């Protein structure tokens, strides 16, 4: 794999990094929201 990006490295790496952070963050936020909702439902159903 070619990692020598020449003069463009200063643009390409941040672009990939920001994309990774944004997509990863979006995924984490979504999964966390799901887990939280499930936990709340489980707690409420236990009370029944």
């Amino acid at each position: 794999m070619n990692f020598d990006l020449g003069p463009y490295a200063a643009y390409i790496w941040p672009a990939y990094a920001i994309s990774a952070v944004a997509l990863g963050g979006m995924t984490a936020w979504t999964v966390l929201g799901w887990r939280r909702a499930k936990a709340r439902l489980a707690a409420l159903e236990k009370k029944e």
Partner: protein
Amino acid sequence: MNWLFKYANPHNFMRLSNWLLPVCAVGAVLCLAVGLYFSFSAPPDYQQGATVLLLFIHVPADLMAMGAYVIIAVCSLMSVIWRHPLSDTAARAAAPLGAVFTFLGLVTGALWGKPMWGTYWVWDARLTSFLLLLFLYLGYMALWNAIEDETRAARACAILALISVVNIPIIKFSVDWWSTLHQGETIMAGKLAPVYLAPFFLMMAGYAFLFGALWMLRIRTFIVERRARTLMVSA
């Protein structure tokens, strides 16, 4: 149309997403991993050098940003015409995802613009209409959060989404018209060399699978939250 109404039932949707979600998740991971490998293995473009790498994350982000808004519009239409109960939830779930893709499209576009045109921001047709698309997303999400009554919020946002989607081609056209008024940078040729097709399609598929998986998960989350709320009320 009947199959659509089948999944209007939250229970059926949960069953569908039980298997479809993991498929999309795995698809996303595979496509992105292999796509990244192919992207960085591809030779640099003779004109653009290594910046062609930005194409592989910029265009998929752009396409997903627009696709998500189309999805919101379609769901809004289904909500308004057929009162499809899950479609409001589906539209609402897609919005933050689309907004993030729009943001990424803007950022990667700016970082591509600097080596290409010498400046981070250009008021060209694409970047400008994408900035406006971001505002559309933010306004849509803000309206959902601002109206307390959920049914009312759903109806209002459906109206907003349908009006905005009609305006999106108008925005695109007017900004295009305007940016050719102030002639500036050259427009990049659309032809993509075959050696770049594989990484591009893989990254595109990866982005799409990721959206699909997260979208379904968000819809599931809304369904579960609603169940929890009915339990709390009846308790």
